[in-house]
């Protein structure tokens, strides 16, 4: 049974329809990235899931039905988390834990545990007003998971961080995967690829692509052979193209790129031909088109 099922979710702000009918399900223990450009509707979707915004139509049903308080099941970190600056980190975490229904002692132990996990133990007795951006982000993650929710939603958890902060938070999320399902939004495919196995790709309020990264790769990625010769690359490439083992050819500066269907066959064919004619080959590279390019294409459409 999925933790949450979303059907035909819609939301409009004034005259603009921001979410145009989303359908998806999230199951337990998965890590899913909500991918999309700025303005694609990621934050709106997460806010609706967290109950901070009401959808215009469609339904969000959490495990346990519509009657139960779904907030026990979720943890949420907004894009720009704000805390009570006058509290210390420890006070805030314990407060969050108590509000989530943990008994006093449990809240204290769990807070302690999370300071260890997030690596901000040194700052736990400092006022949150003095925390750096990365520390606030980690405190934000800690408060989101303090009650061991089944689903944690993180809105752009790494976007505002410097490379070190980014790395730390990504590693933290990697650890979290073992405990809970994660849904996090990002506009960077790299982040998604690093820790997630599935993505939901949002564009202009619509789900344009979704599935496992592996599945998307086989679906969208194509094998590619790049060739370069010492001279006359264009001429040789055109001659080779007569062999027709590929679906398209592109001349890219010094290189000729061939998108091919059957990599084994194409390699064999090219290499034999090149050897036979003793062409002055300087580069022969087999690679794949990047998933990023696929998404760029979708976004630019």
């Amino acid at each position, binding site marked *: 049974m999925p933790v949450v099922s979303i059907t035909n979710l819609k939301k409009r702000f004034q005259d603009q329809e921001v979410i145009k009918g989303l359908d998806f399900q999230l199951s337990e223990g998965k890590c899913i990235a909500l991918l999309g450009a700025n303005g694609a509707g990621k934050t709106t979707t997460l*806010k609706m899931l*967290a*109950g*901070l*915004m*009401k959808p215009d139509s469609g339904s969000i049903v959490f495990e346990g039905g519509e009657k139960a*308080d779904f*907030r*026990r099941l*979720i*943890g*949420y970190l*907004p894009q*720009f*988390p*704000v*805390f*009570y600056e*006058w*509290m210390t980190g420890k*006070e805030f975490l314990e*407060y*969050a834990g*108590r*509000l*989530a*229904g943990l008994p006093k002692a449990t809240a204290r132990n769990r807070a302690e545990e999370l300071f260890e996990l997030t690596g901000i133990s040194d700052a736990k007795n400092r006022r949150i007003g003095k925390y750096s951006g990365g520390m606030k982000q980690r405190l*934000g993650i800690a*408060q989101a998971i303090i*009650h061991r929710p089944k689903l944690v939603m993180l809105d752009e958890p790494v976007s505002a961080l410097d490379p070190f902060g980014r790395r730390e938070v990504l590693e933290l999320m990697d650890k979290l995967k073992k405990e809970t399902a994660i849904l996090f939004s990002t506009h960077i495919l790299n982040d998604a690829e690093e820790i997630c196995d599935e993505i939901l790709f949002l564009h202009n309020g619509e789900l344009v692509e979704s599935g496992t990264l592996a599945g998307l790769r086989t679906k969208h990625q194509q094998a590619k052979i790049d060739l370069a010769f010492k001279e006359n690359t264009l001429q040789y490439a055109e001659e080779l193209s007569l062999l027709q083992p590929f679906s398209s050819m592109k001349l890219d500066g010094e290189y000729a790129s061939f998108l091919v269907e059957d990599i084994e066959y194409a390699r064999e064919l090219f290499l034999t031909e090149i050897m036979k004619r003793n062409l002055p080959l300087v580069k022969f590279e087999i690679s794949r088109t990047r998933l990023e390019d696929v998404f760029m294409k979708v976004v630019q459409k």
Partner: protein
Amino acid sequence: MNQWMTLFKKEMLEMSRNFKWIWVPLTFIMIAVKEPLTLYYMPQIIDSLGGLPEGAVIELPVPSAGEALAASLSQFNTFGVLIIVLITMGTIAGERKSGVAGLILVKPVSYAWFVTAKWASSMILIWFSYFLSYFLSWYYVGVLFKFISFTDFLQSFFVNGIWLTLIITVVILFNTFMKSPGAVGFISIGIIVILSLLSSSLPHLLEWSPALLSAYANAFIMGSNFPDELLPSIIVSVFMITLSLLASIAIFKRRELA
């Protein structure tokens, strides 16, 4: 109930961290106690400032003890109300505006408890400051003029306090409506001013109005008896306080927080 205590304790802690427990009582004391003091020392003050020509004879009627204490009481309805609105106008609106409310209310927090904990903590702070300052004022009136019976003091204290409670509750109500503390303050003050003006200019039509409670308390401390309309006024006030609180909770539940 556990959760309510957690929310309530946080409010109390916040009030002590930002020194509200010090400056709110101090401000209340300043505005209340200054009345009997200035009334008593007025001749000396005018004298020392030397604003009058040589030979002029100042004859100020010596105010009665009741008048002096009533002067304090009326301060609560001008400056006092302003301070109450200023310190409560951001209690929920401010948290919503900054975004921290979003972080807190995605936890399984009861909306009713969130609102009532805010209300209760504001009540305690303001009633404490109000009592302390009015009590000191009563004491100074006793020392400088004449001691007024303590039960009379208490009665006027509670009657006027009901009006102040209604103000706190109205500010909380607008807190659940709007995201901007400034707007909350502006509208609350507007409503209070309109209600007070209407009640004082049309007292025969609105004799049960909560806004008249302060006038009743004022007249009482100056020596007259409470009018028959006191009880209905109190009942109307308590009814409005309850209604506003329930409305606050209902509205807050339906609001989009982000």
